[in-house]
């Protein structure tokens, strides 16, 4: 019986090691969902999302965007986090948004600090991002995806959100999860 247990324990330990890669320094670390800077990852995700959304009636391919850092001065509106929380939870975050346009559209890539529960953080961002950050105009959908220590936040058209998450999922080396916000950003007092 003891031998059988030892075999099971050994097998379990061996299986645990399967999900990790050994680096040159000999240290064992979890695989990363993405490689590169947040800006590079965001660029890849958006590039692929544009391909996926190309045939849509309101394709995100038609929106000229620039990339800017999310920081302590704008994290409240974009991520729904206080500056203190931003510093505590986020390594880096970048946003792609329209240049010289009032089209409601934003895609944000967030790298969370190691050890942070990214799924919980993603859901906080989903509920906290300000739908009124586009002035009088409103987005159609708000979606987050998380994978490893990365989170993508898309606030744009329905098809745009689908395309951004699909690209994020496709490009990630790790399994990802998606969460959608129920439309609670109407100005109407009855909805």
């Amino acid at each position, binding site marked *: 019986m003891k031998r059988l247990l030892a075999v099971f324990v050994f097998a379990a330990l061996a299986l645990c090691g399967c999900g990790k890669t050994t680096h040159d320094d000999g240290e064992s670390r979890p695989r990363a969902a993405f490689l590169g800077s947040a800006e590079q990852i965001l660029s890849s995700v958006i590039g692929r999302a544009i391909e996926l959304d190309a045939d849509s009636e309101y394709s995100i391919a038609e929106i000229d965007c620039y990339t800017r850092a999310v920081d302590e001065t704008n994290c409240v509106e974009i991520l729904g986090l206080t500056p203190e929380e931003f510093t505590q939870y986020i390594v880096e975050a970048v946003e792609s948004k329209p240049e010289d*346009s009032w089209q409601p559209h934003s895609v944000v890539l967030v790298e969370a600090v190691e050890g942070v529960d990214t799924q919980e953080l993603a859901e906080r961002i989903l509920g906290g991002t300000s739908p009124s950050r586009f002035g009088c105009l409103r987005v159609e959908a708000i979606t987050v995806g998380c994978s490893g220590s990365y989170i993508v936040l898309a606030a744009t058209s329905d098809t745009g959100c689908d395309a951004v998450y699909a690209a994020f999922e496709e490009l990630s080396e790790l399994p990802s999860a998606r969460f959608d916000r129920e439309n609670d950003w109407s100005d109407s007092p009855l909805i």
Partner: protein
Amino acid sequence: MPDRAKSIIQTVVFSVMLIVLGIAALVRTPDTYSVEERRRLMQAPELSADSVMSGELFEDTEEYLKDQFPLRRGFITAAGMARLVLGQRDSHGVYVYDGMAVPIGTAGRAEAERLAAKLNAVTDMWFSDSPVYIAIAPDKACFFSAIVPAPDYEVICDTLMTQTGGTVIPLTTLDSDDYYNTDHHWRQECLIPTAELILDEMGREYAPFDMQEQEVGGFIGVYGSVPLPLKDDTIVCLTDDVTDSAIVRRAIEGERGFEAAQLYYPENINSKEPYDVYLGGACTVITVYNPLYTADDRTLYLFGDSYSLSIAPLLLHGYSQVVIIDIRYTRTSTLAEFTDIREDGDVLYLYGMQTLDSAGILNTD
């Protein structure tokens, strides 16, 4: 009534509702847009092998049925009305007081500090040697602070005063009647005393206002598209020689170039954003020239949101040029690509409290 009869009636009514609503959902022409929610509604998904295998068809169908459910608007309205009838004082943060929708407000010192930091960044980048003025349009709730949660306007003005190098102009001329019943915006036809206050504080010369009211049409604001007990609204444009002779140019969306434009767009009364009657609505930069102003050739750089668009034609009476800049939609660092930045210009930051509440959206690079 015997139990058996009750059961039969319940079953028949329930079945008829299921069948009738089900058939209605299938045969009705889908709506394309929800005015209340300001969004396009889901249309019928396409049937394909891929969409079936991926499960997308079923997810999309669920969304479609939620959006296109027969009598959806009626059910939603009934739910909202029931809340009010049952004694809830607000519906989703909006109070109804004497026929006027009054959204609650919570902005205070923290929001004012964040806005001050943003305005300081703009001033430091382009206008460090120019006179700077700041005016915040109070929320309607400020006039009902005894009965609804309201921003503390005095604290906001004090904070902006101490945290910026600018002159804060409290808009003490305003009253709740100066706002629409069904919307949060202020009414242009009530803004002459406010424009006079601002121009006086900025030391500008201007001829006494003698403007005509041109009624554009009925206006249903963001709170008025459902049958709350609200009074009607009308959009009015003020006109005179100055507005008639103004030369207006709007930046083209996505470009740094301009196109000829006008002060008022009456046709926008029928658009999704009727307040876009004033200067055509959202835009990065709009320049308005006043060829009738001869006292000097000073420019006003007016940083603002939709509130600034309706008061700009009035402020034009004290300047030879007003440049309206919306840094929610363009980066502050690119301003020089849109307009000459003159050191002898005046700067006015004029925002509604919705923008004050989300100052992080101002792009100060």
